[in-house]
């Protein structure tokens, strides 16, 4: 028996990016986004194929890489700058600006290990933000840091892109891709499935959920050890009104292989791929006996979803995952509001969900 299974993280991916483009790279987990970025930034080498870059590539892979806790802020600016690919003159030239941008002037002679974590992130980002390579690669760096900091980072990325630099941005967050990028690539299980406009890519990304869901309805293709496979996950209707209870039914056959009871966890995801809610049966003390067949219900109350498409993932677990059924069901929340009054759209456009709230006089 072979000890390893060979696996191509990326295969047959060809594209060309014009200079000055801000390109978003999107795809599900394990699609090969980070591998693509690693290849482009030369952290790892390709096994075949060819990449041509016009200019130097710098990366903001993860803030703080290359910082040494014992070194002072100033020493770290020079070390980190060099590691990110800046020459000594470049760092010297930008030094004052880096310090000003990070806002840590007073602590330049203090070892970084005595910094607060916020200060460390600020310093690291300021160094990285002053990287003047022609191509800039970013891997979800915006996920860290506080809101003010994210705002500044996005501004810096915009500036980079409008200054004629090419920006490559890998993300799960479709909103930021939409906000920042001028074009996008969609990767699916190692293949390039779409490249073009941001809108087109996001469209294709949503469609890929559909083809993915069809593939997942075949239990043999689903992850999990298979000691128990769900037969069916469904809802009464594919349309739901915001504020209504959500009733998800599932059918699980008995399993002879399984010893001891198992539990079920369901996720509700929005069309951006974000998990809105997790409903784990352990939290309500519900376990299932594998000797019997179960026709179960999951009843979700008081979840006020915003209008849009949602998918349901159902996981059956014991010590390990028995069955992982992503995209087991899909439903749409109708665009009528659960509130007593209507307002212009600015009153409802923020936030991931609606909530049951009230304003009262003291």
């Amino acid at each position, binding site marked *: 028996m072979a000890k390893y299974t060979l696996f191509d993280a990326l295969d047959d991916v060809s594209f060309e990016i014009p200079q000055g483009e801000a390109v978003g790279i999107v795809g599900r987990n394990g699609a090969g986004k980070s591998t693509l970025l*690693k*290849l*482009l*930034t*030369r*952290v*790892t*080498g*390709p*096994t*075949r*194929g*060819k*990449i*041509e*870059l*016009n*200019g*130097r*590539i710098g*990366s903001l*892979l*993860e803030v703080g*890489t*290359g910082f*040494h806790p*014992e*070194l002072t802020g100033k*020493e770290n600016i*020079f*070390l980190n700058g*060099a*590691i*990110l*690919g*800046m*020459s*000594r003159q470049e760092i010297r030239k930008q030094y004052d600006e880096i310090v000003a941008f990070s806002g840590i002037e007073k602590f330049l002679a203090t*070892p970084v290990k005595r910094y607060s974590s916020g200060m460390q992130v600020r310093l690291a980002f300021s160094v990285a933000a002053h990287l*003047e390579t*022609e191509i800039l690669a970013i891997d979800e760096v915006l996920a860290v840091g506080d809101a003010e900091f994210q705002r500044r980072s996005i501004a810096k990325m915009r500036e980079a892109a409008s200054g*004629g630099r090419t920006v490559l941005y890998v993300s799960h967050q479709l909103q930021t891709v939409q906000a920042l990028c001028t074009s996008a690539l969609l990767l699916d299980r190692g293949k390039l499935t779409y490249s073009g406009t941001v809108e087109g890519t996001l469209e294709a990304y949503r469609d890929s959920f559909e083809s993915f869901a069809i593939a997942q309805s075949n239990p043999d293709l689903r992850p999990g050890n298979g000691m128990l496979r769900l037969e069916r996950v469904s809802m009464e209707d594919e349309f739901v009104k915001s504020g209504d209870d959500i009733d998800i039914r599932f059918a699980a056959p008995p399993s002879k292989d399984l010893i001891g009871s198992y539990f079920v966890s369901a996720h509700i995801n929005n069309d951006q791929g974000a998990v809105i809610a997790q409903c784990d049966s352990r939290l309500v003390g519900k376990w299932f006996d594998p000797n019997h067949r179960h026709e179960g219900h999951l009843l979700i109350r008081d979840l006020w979803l915003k209008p849009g498409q949602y998918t349901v993932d159902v996981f059956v677990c014991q010590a390990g995952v028995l069955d992982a059924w992503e995209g087991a069901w899909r439903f749409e929340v109708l665009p009528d509001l659960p509130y007593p009054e209507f307002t212009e759209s600015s009153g409802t456009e923020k936030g991931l969900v609606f909530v049951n709230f009230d304003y009262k006089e003291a």
Partner: protein
Amino acid sequence: MQKPKPTSITPPGRLNLPQWREIWRSREVAVRMAQRDIIVRYRQTIFGISWVLLQPLVTAGVFTIVFGVIAGLDSDGIPTFVFTLAAMLAWNLFNGAVSQASTSMVSNQSLVQKVFFPRLIVPASSVVSIVVDFLVSLTLLVALLFIFGINPGWPILLLPVWVLLILMLGLGLGLMAAAYLVKYRDVGYVLPWVLQVLMYASPLAYSLNAVPQNIRWFFEANPITWFLEVFRWSTLGAEAPPSWQFIALIVAAPAVLFLGILVFQKNEREFADYI
């Protein structure tokens, strides 16, 4: 903004020779990493750099008592303490280069996984702090030469050559070890033990003349012996080793370094995946 230079990334060939131009372009990384190693080593210590002097002094003292006084082994008419200390410096240079270079990749794991620069820079720059330590402790040896009134004569002019050869030998071995330590952490357990065996199989604290004839060949075949003897010849005016040892050292050191570079480069592509 600089004018863009086109780069082309292709799968590495079978014989992946280092890109010297690229390494030269990334020299700032090497400088900063070496600087970091030196600064970090003695930050938050009271005695700072004097540890570099203290360590060989104490070890040489212990060896003098064990091998010179208790065992009464011969040291070619040179005071055992100086005799041992000189060899100690050469050994520390070699040992330090091997140990630092071999662990450098793993101790810079997060960098190797996330940022690109020619990987050869990591082990190469890690050796710099060892050289600095060596230079500092060399002043100790010079002081002792004056105290004991030893005049090594003209061979001292060749000292830089031996230092360079010792470094080549150490870095070469260190590169091979570093490349395999990335994949197999076992190397980290085996290597210190191998180094210790090599040390005891060399005339560190006594003269080669004190070694019984029947196992002398074993000592003479040990490359550590070659550079210890040559080093003592250059610094203490000890008896010159046989000329075959000179030649062996001069041939072996660059060969080992070259082999080390080849082994390291052959594995370079996979470092970020395995580390």
